[in-house]
């Protein structure tokens, strides 16, 4: 009986076998890397806003405290976005004719809110609470990055579950004294390791309970 496959078929078979292994590996690598890449997570990509609000100007140059606009951050789950009226406390006096601010003035005049594009978001089944993080020494810049250098706000971290859990498993490296949480470019003191160890005790932080599912999912 003549052979069905020629000798060349061995090479083809090897190529197919190894090729599909390689393809699987590449697919797996893409599957792992792509969802974490900035392309998908949107990290670093500024969104177009109805008013090109610059944290760089307001925080970096003027030094306005985070809480002036995000006033729920210490007490509420939501940090809150400033009402049009808050913008107009200053802008009724400053840049009163700037074209850039026309939507803000229009909003106050018409009573229609400004629709901002959400930059930092977690899915609906995640119940994030700002107040507890702020009160336990997790700084704004720990999650939101150095907003004082952002002309247009962009996402600084993935806000993925993996990223959240990194800190919930071991919060120590991200802690600072709660009085310093609103500072930007905070330079840790020399004995920060000791301070952080103390903070865990003083602030009654229990990392072993912080990975319970219901901490974020209810």
């Amino acid at each position: 009986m003549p052979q069905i496959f020629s000798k060349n078929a061995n090479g083809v078979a090897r190529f197919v076998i190894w090729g599909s292994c390689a393809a699987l590996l590449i697919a797996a690598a893409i599957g792992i890397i792509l969802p974490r890449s900035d392309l998908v997570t949107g990290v670093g990509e500024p969104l177009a806003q109805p008013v090109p609000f610059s944290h760089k100007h307001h925080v970096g140059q003027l030094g306005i405290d985070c809480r002036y606009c995000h006033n729920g951050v210490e007490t509420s789950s939501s940090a809150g976005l400033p009402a049009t009226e808050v913008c107009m406390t200053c802008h009724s006096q400053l840049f009163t004719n700037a074209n850039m601010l026309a939507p803000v003035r229009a909003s106050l005049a018409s009573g229609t809110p400004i629709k901002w594009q959400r930059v930092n978001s977690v899915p609906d089944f995640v119940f994030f609470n700002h107040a507890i993080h702020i009160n336990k020494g997790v700084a704004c810049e720990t999650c939101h990055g150095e907003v004082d250098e952002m002309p247009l706000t962009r996402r600084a971290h993935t806000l993925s579950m993996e990223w959240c859990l990194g800190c919930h498993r071991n919060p120590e490296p991200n802690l600072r004294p709660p009085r310093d949480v609103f500072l930007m470019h905070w330079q840790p003191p020399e004995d920060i390791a000791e301070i952080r160890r103390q903070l865990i005790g003083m602030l009654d932080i229990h990392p072993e309970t912080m990975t319970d599912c219901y901490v974020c999912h209810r």
Partner: protein
Amino acid sequence: MSAIADDRPRSAIDIAALRKRLARSGEIWRSLDEIAGTAEFRRFVEAEFPAIAERLPGKPNRRTLLKLMGASLSLAGLAACSRAESIVPYVRQPEILIPGKPVYYATTLSSDGFGIGAILESHEGRPTKIEGNPDHPASRGATDAVMQAAVLTLFDPDRARTPLKGGQPASYGDFLKDMAALVSRWTASQGQGAALLLEASTSPTFVAQIDALRVRYPKLKIYRHDALATPAAEAASRALFGSPLAPIYRFDRAETIVSLDADFLGEGPGRLAYAHDFAARRRVRDPSDRMSRLYAVESTPTITGAAADHRLAIKPSEVEAVAAGLNAALTGQTGGSGSPIDQAWMTALVDDLKVSGRDALVIAGAHQSAFVHAAALAANATLGALGNTVELIEPPDALPVDGDLAALREAISRQAVDTVVALGANPLHTSPANLDMRKAFSGLKLLVHHGLYREETAFLAHWHVPAAHELESWGDIRAYDGTASLVQPLIKPLYDGKTAHELLAVLDGQFETDPMSLVRQHWAAHDDDAWKKALRDGIVFDSAAKPVTVTVPPDLGSLRPAANAAAGIEIRFVADPWLRDGRFANASWLQELPRPLTKIVWSNAALISPATAERLKIENGRVINVVSNGADIDVPAWIVPGHPDETVTLSFGFGRKAGSVAALAEGYDAFRLRSGAEWFATGAALAPRENSVRVITTQHHQAMEGRAIIRHASLDLFRQDPHFVRKDAPPSPTESLYPEWPYDQEAWAMAIDLSACIGCMACVSACQAENNIAPVGPDECERGQEMHWLRVDRYYAGPLDAPEIFFQPVPCMHCEKAPCEVVCPVNATVHTHDGLNAQVYNRCIGTRYCSQNCPYKVRRFNFLDHQSFDKDEAGPEQGVHNPNVSVRSRGVMEKCTYCVQRISAKRIQAQIENRDIADGEVVTACQQACPTQAITFGDRNRKDAKVVREKSAPQNYALLEELNTRPRTTYLGKISNPNGKLAGPGEATDG
């Protein structure tokens, strides 16, 4: 025999055999099907979610299945993508409002016209949850099942959205133009031919407005139509004392209570307060504690009868004889002959009453005749209880009217009235059939209807004006004891509805009014501080009615018992406990909330006794024809143990098709058999038909067959053996193969006092509101797929015709050694550091292994997408969702979480303040709603916690202890207080 469609064969139950069997044993059972072991019951026991096969589309072939799988795989990727969202901050943010933090307001909800105080939780201006107002006398911090649904009706997409002129959408401006013409016509004619048709109302502003209209239009007639009115108490006091007075009861002082067909725990505007006080007098934790005793004589099974220590079922017309007999016995006369009550029973009862003296209490059923009320007053006076356990006050709902609906009908037919303005009332549904209001209203020159829905009367009306929901309204209202409180809006009217006050102002010629100022004007005597305080507190300080002192004449005035009833079947009408006269028929939560005793959902049935069913040779679901007063209706029969013989109970509220939810419901309209405002009828006839219809009941779902679920004892037995719950209990092992969990911080636990539970279902409704639990509709309920995280099981014990009745709320037990956790292949149900069995919806792949392995059957599975996630598609009803609880999708298991969102909120608060969570700080939704405080929740690791004290009571036991699941939810065995001289309930038994 639950859940049988018409075509399925039904097994007949041999009632005589069951009666024989139950007479001997102390068996505890759920239904006739259960003890008879019918196929229908086995169907629900053997498959936890029966009829899953019915779910599958036809016979899916391989190709369809592959297609479906392919689709779900490709969709799985899409689900991860999040759409760009916008954030919309305020333009002017209210000072008190911080996004993410709920704000609480006090307001008052109306229950059959009377106020019950409530605290509303509002998220960014959106009311989502209703709690009781602890400062309000009619609430005492509790709510009932119907109040919980007020947020649902607020967001009901079927609500009337626009004024209608002759059925066509019109503007409110057009309406005002027509009203201006009407006002000038009335002004000229002094209101000749005009009539107002009102509902029951206790609003002081409303009464003042009506008075003003009477002055303005002297010939204006006012009629009151309130299908659920119970005027007998006032009629009795008018006959006895010359003025109408309303009784209020002080259960906190009552030692021996006799109910003459009074369902004081389930009906009436004071029910929550009464339940609170009643249960407080029956809280036994130690053999030295005392308990009140309740004798109930009733004409239909009620939750009051279930709570009674002695219960007697008699025909409605026989209650008068009992009342007369009781009075005679108390005053020492020889007992009236022909009393339907056993003489020994009456003697024991009278002795008990005499011992209690002024701490005794005789209550007449609100729907009973004036004679029964007079007899009860006389009995209380004889005992010295008048002024102590019974107080008489000016009726809070006194509204001087020219007559009822029949009077209006008569006035229309003699053409004395040609214009009717109906405020809230829906007479076309709720009027007796023989009045033929449709014909009467058709001949009117002008009919204006004001209501929340475009209901039956609205279709006939020349003008229909949408009403503002009570959560959108300014108003005021009085509670059962006369306490006035304010109604404040939680939200601007969604559909530009108008309050009744605004409409009355229009008729008074004030076309542009502010709904608040109308109410504020009435309370002008209160300065702004007092007004604000009343708004904040939810009550107007010191506004309760003062008790009136009276003397009962010895001969009961002119009141006599009615002549002996005609032979034949008697009909007892009741209002559906949730839908009332049908006004809440479009609230899916209420349609799907099992009725306390029958556990029927989405329909009503004609309740009959086993003996009557035996005589008629009918079974559950068989259609019977009820004939009374020349009218007849076909109704499905439902056999209820403990129902009086030769009596049929028909409930109002069903048979409506107005509204998309109401149209899903089945059931009959009992108003068609009513001839007036009567609550019972005699001389009716029952004739079985050949066919059956489905009656959907949840009573077999999640059964835990034959095990010691309910444990109970009499007070005497408890005193002999405080640890009666341990008697005959199988030993529970001490070792376990399950992991040992450390509980270093909190260890959440719950105790449920079965003695306090009255089965009112408020907890189930509150749980549904708090946890975004989806209603599933009648077909799903029939399959046993209702989603309630908390169920209240009803058990019977003892003889078939007069069983004892028990209720047992069953939430998740949160086992320390949880069988559900170990079987989940994807770790979607996990143990937390504080001992909760957490369910992670996003991990769940729907194997249902956990539910299979749960011995308590407390897990619920989403077989369908019951709630839409598409914000545009979901419609206004998504507004009711609690923003702190995930909405679950199809294919996901869910269950009671001990209200983990509330625990988390309090924990975050405590952590921010750097302190421990205080005892009593975390309150679960079921606990908060409970009128009798049967549920206690707290941290078991705190030695001073209330839940620890409850659990250390001798009658504390866990369900199925022998399985060694170590549940965190435990029960306090039921203790009743029967009279030792009467043979009856009370031997310690395990169910």
